C-alpha cells in the first residue's frame, strides 16, 4: 500500500495554477493584420482569422500559400514581420517565456512528420510534456497515462516500447497525436494529419479527431488537403489565397463565394466525390 503511494506520486507542482486568461470569450485564436515576409517574398499580408471555441477549423490553400507558416506564426515558432496574434487572449508576439508557458500547457501540436524525439521510445515521447509540466508525477502514473493515450490514438499497445525509426509514417502520426494530447489540451493544431495515410487510416483519424472534439470540447486548427476530412469533420473552413484569408465559413457558404479557386477546389472532380461520400455517410447515420 505504501509502495503504491510512492509510485503514484502526485500532480502538484510548485507554481500556482492559474486559469488561462480568456477575455475574448468565444474566440480562441485571433489573428489581426498578420504579415510574414522572407527576404523579398511576402507570404502573408493583412491576414485576419478567428478560431472559435469548440470548433474544428479547416485551413486550405494551394501549395505555397503559407498554411504551415500561418500555423508557425500562431504557435510562436515564426516571428511575424507585423501584426497581432493572440491565443486564449494572450498575445503571442513579444510575450515573455513565463507567459508562454501557461499557453503551451493548454495546446497540443501535431507536426507533419510527427516530429517524434528519435532517441526516446514512443511511450517516452508521450511522457515528455507531462514530465515538463508535472515534474513530480510518479513514474507509474506516467507510464499508465502514456499507455492509454497511445491506445486512444489508435496505436497498437506493442508500439509503446518501439523507437520512432521502427514505425511507419502513419504510426508516427498517431504517436505524434498521442504526444499532442498528452496534457489534455483545449486547443489542438494538426498539420496535414491524414496526408500519407491509407483511406481507412485517414477515416479513422478523422473519426478520432471528431470524437476528441465532442468528448473533450477541443478546439482544432486543422491544415489539410484532404477533401474528405473537410467534409467529414470541419465545422468551418478558411481559404488561404493572395496572402490572406479570402473566405471563412461552412462549405455550403464557401460554395456561394464567387472565387474561381474556391469553386475549382470544391466543385472539381475530387471535391464532388468527397461531397458525395460525405452525404452518403450522413444518410447512413440517419438511417
Amino acid at each position, binding site marked *: 500500500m505504501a509502495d503504491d503511494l510512492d509510485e503514484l506520486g502526485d*500532480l502538484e507542482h510548485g507554481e500556482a495554477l492559474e486559469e488561462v486568461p480568456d477575455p475574448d470569450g468565444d474566440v480562441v485564436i485571433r489573428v489581426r493584420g498578420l504579415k510574414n515576409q522572407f527576404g523579398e517574398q511576402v507570404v502573408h499580408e493583412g491576414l485576419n482569422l478567428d478560431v472559435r471555441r469548440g470548433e474544428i477549423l479547416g485551413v486550405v490553400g494551394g501549395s505555397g500559400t503559407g498554411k504551415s507558416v500561418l500555423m508557425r506564426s500562431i504557435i510562436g515558432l515564426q516571428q511575424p514581420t507585423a501584426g497581432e496574434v493572440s491565443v486564449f487572449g494572450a498575445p503571442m508576439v513579444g510575450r515573455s517565456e513565463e507567459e508562454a508557458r501557461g499557453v503551451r500547457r493548454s495546446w497540443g501540436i501535431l507536426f507533419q512528420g510527427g516530429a517524434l524525439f528519435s532517441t526516446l521510445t514512443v511511450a517516452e515521447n508521450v511522457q515528455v510534456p507531462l514530465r515538463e509540466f508535472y515534474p513530480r508525477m510518479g513514474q507509474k502514473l506516467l507510464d499508465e497515462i502514456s499507455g492509454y*493515450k497511445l491506445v486512444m490514438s489508435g496505436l497498437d499497445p506493442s508500439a509503446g516500447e518501439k523507437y*520512432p525509426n521502427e514505425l511507419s509514417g502513419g504510426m508516427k502520426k498517431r504517436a505524434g497525436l498521442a504526444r499532442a494530447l498528452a496534457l489534455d489540451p483545449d486547443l489542438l493544431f494538426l498539420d496535414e494529419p491524414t496526408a500519407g495515410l491509407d483511406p481507412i487510416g485517414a477515416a479513422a483519424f478523422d473519426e478520432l479527431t471528431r470524437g476528441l472534439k465532442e468528448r473533450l470540447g477541443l478546439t482544432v486548427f486543422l491544415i489539410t488537403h484532404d477533401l474528405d476530412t473537410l467534409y467529414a469533420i470541419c465545422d468551418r473552413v478558411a481559404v488561404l489565397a493572395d496572402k490572406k484569408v479570402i473566405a471563412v465559413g461552412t462549405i455550403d457558404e464557401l460554395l456561394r463565394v464567387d472565387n474561381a479557386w474556391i469553386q475549382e477546389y470544391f466543385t472539381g472532380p475530387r471535391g464532388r466525390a468527397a461531397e458525395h461520400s460525405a452525404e452518403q455517410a450522413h444518410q447512413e447515420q440517419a438511417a
Partner: protein
Amino acid sequence: MQQVARLERAGEVVRLSGPLTLAQLGNLPRRLDAAVKAGTHIDLSGVERMDTVGAWIVHRLVRDRGAAVVGADERSASLLAQVAQADKPVRVRPERPGGLIRLLGEVGDATATAGRTMLGLVGFFGALMLSVGRVIRHPRRLRLNAVVQRFEVVGVRALGIIGLMSFLIGIVIAQQGAVQLRQFGAEVFTINLVGRITLRELGVLMTAIMVAGRSGSAFAAQIGSMKLAEEVDAMRTIGVSPMEALVLPRFLATVLMMPLLAAYASVVAIIGGGLLSWIALDIPPVTFVQRLREVVPITDLWVGLVKAPVFGAIIALAGCFQGMQVEANAEEVGLRTTAAVVQAIFLVIVIDAFFAVFFTEIGWN
C-alpha cells in the same frame, strides 16, 4: 479564486467535486488512493469538468480496488468508457538484460561491428576500384565537373586554415627545439629539426588530420543525408552509379589535393620556423635556407609526398563509406560522421607507422 478538485469522505462514499482535470488534480490521486477501498462508491455528481487524466484516475480505482462509480453524467461516463477501452498493457521501453550479460553483449557487439566495418571498408575499396576500372575504359563517364568542384572544396578552401595551423606548428617546433638544444649550445640544429620533421612527418600528418576533420566528415554527412532523403536510391533507379557520381569525384579530389596541401603545409611550417629562428635565435633567413639545403635530404620531401595521396585515399574512403552506411534516422548521420573522422585519423596514424619502418628499411633516413 482558483478552482481545484476536492474530495469529501462520508463512510463508504467518496465524493469528488470541482474540475477533475490534469492541471487541477494536485495531490488528489494520492488522497484518493488512501481513501478508496474495495466497495467504496465514488460519487462524481459534483464534478464540473473532467479530462482523460481525471477519468483515468477514477478508472484505475475501479480496476484495482473494485470501487464503484455513481452519479456520473453522460460525458463523464463516456470518457470513463473511453479510457477503460484504451486500458491495455503498454510497455514503455524495451527490456534489457542486466549486468554482466549486457556487458558481454556490448563487448561482443563492438567486436563484431569493428570486424564488419573493416571488411566493409575493404569491400568498399574493391567496389571503388571496379568503378575506377570502368571509368578508365570509358573516360567520358568521369564527372570532371564534380571532381574540379571538389578540388575547390577540399583543396583551395582549406588553404587558409591549413596555412595558419602549419605556420604556428613551425613556430612551436622551432621554439621548443631551440630551448632544448640551447642546453648543448647547439641552437643551430633547430634548422635540422624544423626542416626534417615537417617535411617527413608533421606537414603531411597535420594536413591529413585537418582534411579528415574538414572534408572526411563533410563527405559522410553529405552522402548520409542523401541516403536518408532516398537520393541515392533515386540515382540507382535512374541508372546512375552512386560510386561514380558521389564517391569517385570525392576520392580523386582528395587523393590529388593531399600532396599539394601537404607540400604547402610543410613550406609554411618551415617559414614559421625560419621566422622564429630569425627573431629568437638571430639566424638570418639566408643562413637558414642555406643550412636547410645542406641538412635536409631531398628524400624527406619524397617521403612526405608518397604518404600524402595514401592518407587522402584513406580519408575519402572512410568518409564516403560511413556516409553510405547511413540508414533509418538522422541521428545516424551524426554517429557516422564521427565514425568517419575517428576511423580516418586512426588509420592514417597506423599506416604512418608502417611507412616510417618502410622508409627506414629502404635507407631514406
